[in-house]
């Protein structure tokens, strides 16, 4: 459903993505793992066009584009069916939780206010934040903010949601509440690409795992297979260190 081919991205002379192929099917949960600095965030940001891409092709549903020569209009069309959950939540600080979830519906999608409100409350209920609807982001814990951010993402009814380390800015005791929400979404068949350091979550929830290092995909496959019998030595080393850390 979403496929990116031969993606290249440099920051100055630093080549961060060296020809990445990435693909995700409808209903699939793909975990992207790898050491820090390997280009995972950049990959998601390129897919969502938050970074300018040097070269690559994207196929998203019916749409097909050369990623390096894409218009702002085409980008908006792609984003219409794509959501992003940021490591640092990025809730609009001038809006309540409810306002955050309603904003895209009302302003971008021109949904009637009352309908948008209903949808938004439903989404907040889904992430267990209905009772905090009138709170501003500053009045919420990190875990609560991230759950609102997820509500904001699913409210757009996207084809795919990209998660960039959604729990790594959180205190350990707050990560579970966010992971629980993501598990629920996965069970409902939501298509998700998740950059994560939560190995247990990746093993349980992801159908497929992509291991990146140094701007290339080193290994990928069904999550059980990659976690239990990694083929590549580098994957094995990374997983051993990750398990030790947990």
């Amino acid at each position, binding site marked *: 459903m979403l496929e990116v081919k031969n993606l290249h991205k440099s920051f100055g002379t630093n080549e961060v993505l060296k020809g990445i192929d990435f693909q995700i099917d409808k209903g699939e949960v793909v975990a992207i793992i790898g050491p820090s600095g390997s280009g995972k965030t950049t990959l998601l940001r390129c897919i*969502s066009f*938050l970074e300018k891409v040097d070269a690559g092709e994207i196929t998203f549903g019916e749409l097909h584009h050369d990623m390096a020569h894409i218009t702002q209009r085409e980008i*908006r069309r792609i*984003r*219409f069916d*794509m*959501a*992003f959950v*940021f490591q*640092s939540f*990025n*809730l*609009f*600080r*001038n809006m*309540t939780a409810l306002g955050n979830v309603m*904003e*895209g519906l009302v*302003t*971008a*999608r021109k949904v009637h206010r009352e309908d948008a409100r209903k949808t938004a409350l439903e989404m907040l209920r889904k992430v267990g934040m209905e*009772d*905090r*609807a*009138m*709170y*501003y982001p*500053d*009045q919420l814990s990190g875990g609560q903010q991230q759950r609102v*951010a997820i509500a*904001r993402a699913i409210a*757009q009814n996207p084809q795919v949601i990209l998660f960039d380390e959604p729990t790594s800015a959180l205190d350990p005791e707050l990560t579970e509440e966010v992971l629980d929400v993501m598990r629920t979404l996965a069970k409902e068949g939501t298509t998700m690409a998740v950059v994560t350091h939560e190995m247990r979550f990746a093993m349980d929830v992801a159908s497929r795992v992509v291991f990146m290092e140094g701007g290339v995909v080193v290994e990928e496959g069904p999550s059980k297979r990659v976690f239990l019998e990694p083929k590549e030595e580098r994957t094995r080393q990374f997983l051993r260190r990750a398990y030790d850390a947990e």
Partner: protein
Amino acid sequence: MSERIIEILVSSFTQILIPGIKVTIPLTLASFALSFLLGMVLAIVQVANIRGLKWFARFYIWVFRGTPLLVQLFIIFFGLPRLGIILDAFPAAVLAFGMNLGAYNAEVFRSAIVAIPQGQTEAAQMIGLNYPQTLVRVVLPQAFPIAFPSLFNNLISLLKDTSLASSITVIELFTTAQQIAARTYEPFALYCEAAVIYLAFSTLLTWLQTWLEKKLVWKTKEKYLVAEEQA
């Protein structure tokens, strides 16, 4: 103080205060409104990186911050008629003060806008907002409270700078004080009186600023309590 001076001060007080209220304050507010709009536009074309306009904005700011306000005032009131543009004293003053302060307010807005974390813009774009919507719904509402104290300081400076309008025949607070001083030969008393009235005006503005700043912040304790009750 002699009785004569006290008498002059008392009788001149309302004579100075009335043009203060009728001219100085409207002049200040109209000029500020112009400078606010102009500053906003000059800031937005810079952060939005609109090519020709960005260059124009930098040039404008360079010129208006780099030349004296009094000279700008003279160019507009005494100079422009040479080009066939004749303005009354009051609109000429509004134009000069507004255009001058616009350059300063542009910098205030610009630095407030760039202080908004990029993540806010990115989140807005990911939920489908276009650039103008992102500015109006997300960036400016957050930038405004940051800009507010500096904008208000500029407003208070403007209030005092409007006394320069006396030099282009606008009959405002200070012009009136000058006239009475000339008539009574009591410049010290009259100019001090004018100063006291300016001080009163700017003190009122400072109070207004404190009051508004409390209203502006969206994460106040009161709002928290309201949220608590509604929840």
